[in-house]
């Protein structure tokens, strides 16, 4: 930190979105400092199951009819993400275990089939082609599924990538393009002075040195702190309406490949996939619990596992994929994601606070590289290749002002 303390952009958060943003910015010629309070890729970015899902998810569908239309506004980002993921390995020149062999969203009852049909026609209007399969067509496509499935929506581009690798590869590529990364460092107070932001950075004490404090400046600050984005915004005197939600993941032992697809369910939280190493990852958004500290949820501790969540998640997974029955459950863990009230991401800045850009929310893994690319376009050129106005933080200014002290 002794050499240079002035950057074009200071990115806060060493997860997928922060690393993608840092990468695209550095590649575009900006001087970038990325600051992470712990280690890279250690929160939701490295703990999610790596689904690449482009169909509208169960949690979006499972609302009243009007809301589905509202949630469908995510679709332009999903479509962009299909391309971003298809190109990411060649973009970074490394293997990320990206697999896009298709995903199936399952329906077991007549009501669920109707829901699936309505969802598909809505997606078609937004330009995503999903194929509806019925009865034996499902079995033909995916013989490992149970016989009771009445219909499935097949999206050919869905799949998965390895969350252990993606964020790290983006970070390394960012460094190759000149970005600086500081881990075990927290951003304290953020102040706007003139045309730039001044950030106070506190680096944790470690072997052989005490805690260190530095001031850096950045023309732009990017808040990519995921579930912690609210804390970062507060340090800038702003409000970011993001809610931290702890979720469960499960992994089984490794076996020969037999599930080539991403499996989801139209009305139950479920995701099932088999990674290249042979483990089956089972998740889909089952709840965990925050530890409490001084009577408040503790975001600094790992969220506590809910045993009922594990059992129900496994039950649904085993019902859909009966072959899972004999697999050994190897490991369960939790991660904390950041969620907005309307399930859409918060992307961009508000006119009143120039240079404070937010990039959080929605499906952070599937959409992370796309957020990073769009935010870098915004910062480097002032415009984006996809209209991000629907995701602007400005939509919260009236009810829940994102602009505070400034």
């Amino acid at each position, binding site marked *: 930190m002794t050499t240079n303390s002035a950057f074009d952009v200071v990115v806060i958060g060493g997860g997928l979105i922060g690393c993608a943003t840092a990468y695209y910015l550095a590649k575009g010629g900006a001087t970038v400092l990325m600051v992470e309070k712990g*280690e*890279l*890729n*250690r929160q939701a970015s*490295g703990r999610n199951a790596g689904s690449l899902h482009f169909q509208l998810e169960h949690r979006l569908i499972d609302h009243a009819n009007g809301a589905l239309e509202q949630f469908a506004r995510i679709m332009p980002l999903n479509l962009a993400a299909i391309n971003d993921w298809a190109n990411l390995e060649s973009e970074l020149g490394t293997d990320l275990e990206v697999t896009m062999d298709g995903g199936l969203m399952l329906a077991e009852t007549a009501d669920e089939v109707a829901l699936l049909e309505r969802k598909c026609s809505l997606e078609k209007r937004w330009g995503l082609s999903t194929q509806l399969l019925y009865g034996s067509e499902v079995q033909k496509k995916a013989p490992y599924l149970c016989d009771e499935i009445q219909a499935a929506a097949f999206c050919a581009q869905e799949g998965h990538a390895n969350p*252990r690798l993606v964020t*790290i590869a983006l*970070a*390394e590529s960012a460094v190759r393009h000149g970005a600086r*990364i500081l*881990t*075990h460092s927290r951003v304290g107070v953020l102040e706007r002075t003139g045309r730039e932001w001044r950030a106070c950075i506190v680096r944790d004490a*470690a*072997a*052989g040195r005490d805690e260190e404090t530095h001031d850096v400046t950045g023309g732009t600050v990017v808040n990519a702190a995921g579930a912690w984005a609210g804390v970062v915004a507060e340090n800038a005197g702003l409000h970011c309406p993001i809610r931290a939600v702890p979720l469960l993941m499960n*992994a*089984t*032992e*490794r076996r020969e490949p037999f599930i080539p697809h991403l499996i989801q369910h139209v009305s139950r939280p479920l995701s099932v996939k088999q990674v290249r*190493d042979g483990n089956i990852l089972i998740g889909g958004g089952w709840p965990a619990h925050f*530890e409490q500290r001084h009577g408040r949820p503790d975001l600094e501790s*790992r969220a*506590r*596992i809910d*045993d009922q969540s*594990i*059992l129900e998640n*496994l*039950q649904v*997974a*085993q019902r859909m994929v009966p072959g*899972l*029955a*004999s*697999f*050994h*459950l*190897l*490991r*369960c*863990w939790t991660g904390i994601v950041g969620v907005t009230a309307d399930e859409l991401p918060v992307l961009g800045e508000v006119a009143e606070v120039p240079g404070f850009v937010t990039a959080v929310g929605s499906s952070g893994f599937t959409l992370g590289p796309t957020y990073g690319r769009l935010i870098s376009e915004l910062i480097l050129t002032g415009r984006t290749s996809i209209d991000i106005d629907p995701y602007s933080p400005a939509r919260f200014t009236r009810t829940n002002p994102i602009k505070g002290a400034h």
Partner: protein
Amino acid sequence: MKGAPAQTDVLIIGAGPASLAAASAVLGHNLSITIVDEQLRPGGQFLRQPPRCMQAHNWLDGRLYRPAKRLLQTIEDHPDIDWRFGTTVSALFPDPQPPGIGAAGHSVWLTGAAGMERLRARTVLLASGCYERPLMFPGWTLPGVMGAGAIQTLLKSQQVVSGDRILLVGSHPLQLIVADQILKAGGKVAGVVFSQPALAGGSILQHPGVLFSHFLQFTEIARVFFRLRRAGVRVIFGSAITEAKGTGGVLAATIAPIDSMGGVSGTGTTEFECDAVGLCYGFLVSSELARQVGAEALWSENRGGWLVQHDEWMESTVPGLFVAGEVTGMAGADAAIVEGVIAGMGILRSLGNLDTQQAELGASDHRRQREKNERFARCLADLASPPHALWTGLMAPETIVCRCETVTRQELDDALSVHTHIQTADALKLLTRIGMGLCQGRLCHSTAAQVLSVTRKTSIENVGSFHAAVPARPVPINKLTNT
């Protein structure tokens, strides 16, 4: 899923000496007691029993086994205890609605042949013991390279000798006892190799109090030592194993002298013909279940790794979770029995069956004994440990560290030199898959942490442990869903 989970007042995890002592202390207070163990009979590893259908002649007739055997005889088959053998505690959870007033409460997943059962417990005693600590060197994954304790277990429980010609290498005096038992069972011992210099054993004379209080242990070890000498077994000091050779199985092992830095120079090596190698470099405690619920654990290189911290009643930092035996620090069976009694008193006190004064009365003699045991254990731990540098100094680049996921030392070194941001064992695990396999990192966690701490020049506490995840052992999904 069955109906509402069953409840118990005292759940004891493990059926070794500490557990049996705790159960004895708690019996007679009108409390429901459940003891869970993966084996089919009580006794733990120390008193590993043969199956009921088998008779072992002169089973554990050594003097060291007598106190624990007496305890086992009084409590085995006790009708007031709900014994759950062949059963694993797959997970421990804090109970959101604890049964009973004032109880903290936990719930557990018990998995056995019949499936999974959830059990709610007002108090839990974790006395899950320890397992052998592997030392990693070229060839350590060859069939025939075993823990000396595993060789002993096969002898105790099945009367099976693990090879035709067994070489014992290590730092712990247990290997003398195992060598003696191999000879008694009709096996051949190629040699016993200690990492300590020959005179290290004499340093115990600097602790006369310990020598006096644990005279039996020392005389027993001395007796065994001379018996081995008489039988013509070579006992070598100041050396370590540097390679196990063979394809598909051990054919020979190389021994090299340890230098003053605690490493091996590779000169002056000796080769032993043998078809089995027993490693006896100490133990790691099974503290996973305690760490799963967030009990504080501190690292101790010589006492067994991540030791569960506790108060004077053996209660961990998680209310309602008590610990006894090796999980608090390697100290042996006699010490485990003493801790079991203190924990029993602590449990009775926390459940309101005894007031503090009564519990103190029941615990005070054992507390004094525990202090003596601790002095002995600390002495033994220092005497019985290899030089620090040996843990990370014997591996070749291609030596496998994580055998479940086939992660080599070279892969770890590469990951750490490329990814300079990695500071914790968990981050190393996420990047390299080390510790992600079926043994859930039990075998590699200490080596991974030590490689990381040496490379980053930081302490094991800073590096941390692999997160102790649910389930504690792999469990088939259909057992959990009871389908």
